[in-house]
């Protein structure tokens, strides 16, 4: 077996990151309970998308029968282990924190709100719990099945396993498309249950893919730095960089599509989502997200030399991974903006009513600038949890899928000049 172990120093640093994350979470809960719950939801959702992206990405490689990516595949396949931690944290959020986060879980509020009454058939607490279990059972179950199947090929060298992976990959991608759409709706869009858009899952999908690719790149380059994964050369990393560049641009496309359609239609029940995110401090935060997530990595990664250089690609991957967390914070914290100023300054009665709907229910506001040291600590904690779990799982198996029929082709992979 051709395994690789990172030096203990690196693992200690990752455990330190987890410590920073736990500390930030504790401080956040002590200072402001609302911010604590919102931060925990963002943290858990960020772990979920990192864990999902690996399975999604490797399933696309099975289905397309891609050969270049065979040597890269083990890190993405192993990310599925993170879903267990994410599930545990989201279960805590969905049981203990549900009252703070989800307006539709309060029977007394629903009793006075016609819109929430109409949605109660879907947005109710028991069904919410059932759905969470279904999502994670599907993601973790099929993801582990794919990982086991892929690992079994290392010993047996059986080329039929590749065909089995193709078929299971198709099943995974189909189920993933539906479950991810519903999960985004449940966890994030229902934070603001009066607001809706069909583009929200696509926007989240783009964010998930960008974050996932960048965290995979970080781990692969970390292992390469300490002498592992020698099979991966600059040609493979060039393609990973292209993936990052493409999904990041796709993210910008979805952001623009969603906000442009809302701006153009100009319906009071939709525009408050953006209006409150463009008022006061949030204007800076939104600009920071849109410029930092798209323009900076776009012009950084546009050059071929950046994508082929390990140091530059690592920088770009850290930027996009960090901005992926900022994106999640933007979606989650935005639901708890103190919206009373918008209600007071609304021009018509309809606008005032919509603004009141867009405001979080009694007292559940997050005050102050939405991004500070606590959120940076949470980001480091999430990276620590992700890196620790995935690298521990990676150390137990082969570095590359040794039985894959496409391995030689992958080793010989080479980008045209």
């Amino acid at each position, binding site marked *: 077996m051709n395994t690789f172990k990172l030096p203990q120093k690196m693992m200690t640093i990752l455990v330190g990151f987890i410590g920073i994350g736990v500390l930030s979470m504790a401080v956040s809960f002590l200072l402001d309970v609302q911010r604590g719950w919102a931060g925990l939801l963002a943290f858990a959702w960020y772990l979920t998308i990192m864990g999902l992206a690996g399975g999604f990405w490797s399933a696309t490689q099975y289905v397309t029968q891609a050969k270049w990516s065979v040597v890269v595949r083990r890190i993405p396949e192993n990310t599925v282990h993170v879903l267990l931690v994410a599930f545990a944290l989201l279960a805590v959020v969905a049981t203990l924190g549900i009252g703070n986060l989800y307006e539709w879980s309060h029977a007394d509020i629903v009793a006075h709100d016609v819109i929430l009454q109409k949605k109660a058939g879907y947005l109710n607490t028991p069904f919410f719990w059932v759905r969470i279990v279904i999502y994670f059972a599907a993601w973790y179950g099929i993801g582990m099945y794919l990982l086991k199947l892929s690992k079994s090929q290392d010993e047996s060298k059986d080329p039929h396993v590749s065909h089995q992976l193709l078929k299971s990959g198709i099943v995974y991608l189909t189920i993933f498309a539906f479950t991810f759409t519903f999960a985004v709706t449940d966890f994030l869009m229902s934070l603001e249950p009066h607001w809706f858009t069909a583009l929200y899952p696509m926007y989240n999908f783009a964010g998930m893919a960008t974050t996932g690719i960048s965290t995979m790149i970080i781990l692969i380059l970390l292992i390469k730095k300490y002498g592992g994964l020698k099979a991966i050369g600059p040609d493979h990393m060039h393609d990973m960089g292209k993936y990052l560049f493409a999904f990041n641009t796709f993210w910008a496309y979805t952001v623009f599509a969603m906000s*442009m359609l809302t701006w*153009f239609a100009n319906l009071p029940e939709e525009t408050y989502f953006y209006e409150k995110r463009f008022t006061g401090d949030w204007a800076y935060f939104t600009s920071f997200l849109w410029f930092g997530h798209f323009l900076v990595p776009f012009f950084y990664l546009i050059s*071929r030399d950046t994508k082929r250089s390990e140091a530059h690609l690592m920088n770009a991957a850290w930027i996009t991974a960090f901005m992926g967390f900022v994106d999640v914070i933007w979606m989650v914290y935005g639901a708890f903006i103190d919206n009373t100023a918008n209600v007071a300054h609304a021009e018509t009665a309809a606008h005032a009513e919509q603004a009141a709907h867009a405001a979080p229910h009694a007292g559940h506001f997050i005050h102050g600038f939405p991004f500070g040291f606590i959120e940076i600590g949470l980001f480091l904690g999430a990276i620590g949890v992700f890196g620790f779990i995935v690298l521990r799982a990676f150390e137990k198996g082969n570095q590359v899928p040794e039985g894959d029929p496409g391995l030689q082709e992958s080793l010989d992979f080479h980008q045209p*000049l």
Partner: protein
Amino acid sequence: MPSFKEIKEGLFSYEEVDSGYVVRVKDAHDLLEAAKKVRDAGINRFDTFAPFPIHGMSEAMGLKRSWLPFITLIGGITGFTANISYIGYITLIDWPIIYGGKGFFNFPSMFPLFFEIMILFASLSTVGGFMALSGMGSINRKPPISEATSDGFAIWIGDTIPESEVKKILGSLAMEIRSVN
């Protein structure tokens, strides 16, 4: 009625090989080896001819990176700025009209236009730049050996060196050496 061969020769009249030697080699692998040897011998003026693209030939010949991506970038930037100024001129100076109650210069609603024109300029300049850089514009190119369009492989050495030197560089790879005048 001219024969097919005459028509073909009439079409492909442009001789790009004007001096030096044309050396036939056995197959694609030998051609790669030959290109490496010729480059290592310090000869800059040479080219290879094969019926299909060969992986690794660019590196073997020591070709520099193409300028094509920069042409695409410049085309894209030109298209984007040109269209912004065009729409800006129309909606702010020449004929200001309010569409849908949104004000004069609607950046969000016009952005898809900027984007599309950027793509159009970038893609057209890529095609044009590719034609110019690769010499595909001259459709009457004549290969130095006619088999290079079916099953022959050849390397052309443009420097004026003695034939014994060519033999020394290529060794047993050379199947047939023809000098060009």
